[in-house]
């Protein structure tokens, strides 16, 4: 991977990297990507992808009302709050 590609991935991941951080990351990610490339050796024709170890999917519960977290508890960890809402920088001009 080159620095430009790494910068693009950092953008996708919403991760700010310093210039030296970008350099180190490029070197280390390239080595890791080279290592994982060994999977190309494996013949996986007609192999079903395995997302997780259990065979079941779509577990539903009854659609009934239940108590939820009180607003004060939910907001207790907010970095910034305005009344009963989370405070964030302006999204619209």
């Amino acid at each position, binding site marked *: 991977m080159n620095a430009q590609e790494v910068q693009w991935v950092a953008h996708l991941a919403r*991760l700010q990297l310093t210039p030296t951080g970008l350099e180190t*990351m490029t070197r280390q990610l390239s080595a890791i*990507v080279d290592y994982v490339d060994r*999977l190309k050796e494996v013949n996986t024709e007609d192999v079903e992808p395995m997302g997780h170890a259990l065979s079941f999917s779509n*577990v539903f519960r009854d659609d009934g009302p239940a108590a939820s977290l009180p607003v004060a508890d939910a907001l207790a*960890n907010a970095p910034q709050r305005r009344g009963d809402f989370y405070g964030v*920088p302006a999204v619209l001009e």
Partner: protein
Amino acid sequence: MLERTARELSDLLARCEISAETLTQAFLQAIRQRDPQVRAFLHVDEDAALEQARSVDARRRRGESLGSLAGVPVAIKDLICVRGQPATCASKMLQTFRPPYDAHVIERLRQADAVLLGRTNMDEFAMGSSTENSAFQTTRNPWDLERIPGGSSGGSAAAVAACETPLALGSDTGGSIRQPAALCGVVGMKPSYGRVSRYGLIAFASSLDQIGPFGHDVADAALLFDAVAGHDPRDSTSVNRPAPICRQTFDRDIEPLALGVVREHFDAGLDSEVERAVREAIRVYERLGAKIVEVSLPHAKYAVATYYLVATAEASSNLARYDGVHFGHRSREHSDLIDMYCRSRGEGFGPEVKRRIMLGTHALSSGYKDAYYLKALKVRRLIHDDYARAFGQCDAILGPTSPTPAFKIGERGNDPLAMYLADIYTIGANLAGIPGISIPCGFTRSGLPVGLQLLAAPFEEEKLFRIARTFERATDWHTRRPRFVS
């Protein structure tokens, strides 16, 4: 008294030879004395622990029926939520976070009347194999304070090894319970995927994460496993089938017993002293009447590569929630919302977490998803099928837990890939969803513990504990304690 097992302490408590308060005081005192050197704990709430202990004593005096861990202290890895207590994941991102609810396993420990002692150190967001990736402190191995305790649950393993707690909970995504257990000379067990609810476990890689027990011996691990295993509708991957009661059956041998030795586990890269101890453990089983069969896991050499694509892809998605909006670190300076995300995450996460988010994002990104993520899911299926075939020939697979004993602090700091290879024998169990346990099986000449890993078919925890206990009854490795504690 601190060196006793949880079962012994539980007997003393039941016979009223000691109160839960006195016992808790003794462990808190041990933490005050020893932990400045070991640095296993990130947070200890002495008042909360003593209050729980006094409540158990009062109820015992009144003759009330008590839970299976009444008055026994348990330490908790710092990524399992306890209402109102810190849960930092050893990350600056969550330095001030206080969860508003208890994890399922914490509810179960409260029902069992355990005493929650404190929060243990770990690699940041459970990403690492040495606990050096903690943003706050470096935990030391009680057998040699110059060395790492393993990871990511290094704080829990070191706390048990240093007799600062008789029991601890950790989590295992690629070996994070079994590897530190091996390196610290204690027992650590990863349940089958789906056996223990992940509700309230801060997520790393959701298809691989499992919570499991640490203890001085197999019997203690079974006791703690029983307390936390079982169905929970709040985790849709928690299996709805009765959990076994392992603490009642672990002393029954499996007869006849067939054990599989994996050809590929003795390849290059295995330390010769680790190999010697593990081969001797195999001979112990043989003397006890077990039949040893050679099995093959032909895709084992691809497990680390598969894991580092699957786990990082899932992590990049799970850790997207840390955006500086709802909880966790928010950067003071930012020009707009996107800039706030980028700066908050850039400041809050450490280098290894960033590396894994980056690799996972790359593996899932447009143009690369099929070549990396999807390919890894297919190889994961082949790895799973290898284990399924092996368990057709044997009751359990045994081999080394870690290719080396504990290494020196700082030794592998600049080479992420070398660190990843520490998990080479443990990662397969997470990919396949099977249960595994590491038990002490010897020491190197310089006095570092060696762990024996046993793996069983999905949901055969009861059998796994019985087979591990067979070895434990015939040996005394699990009774050794580091010189540091005596």
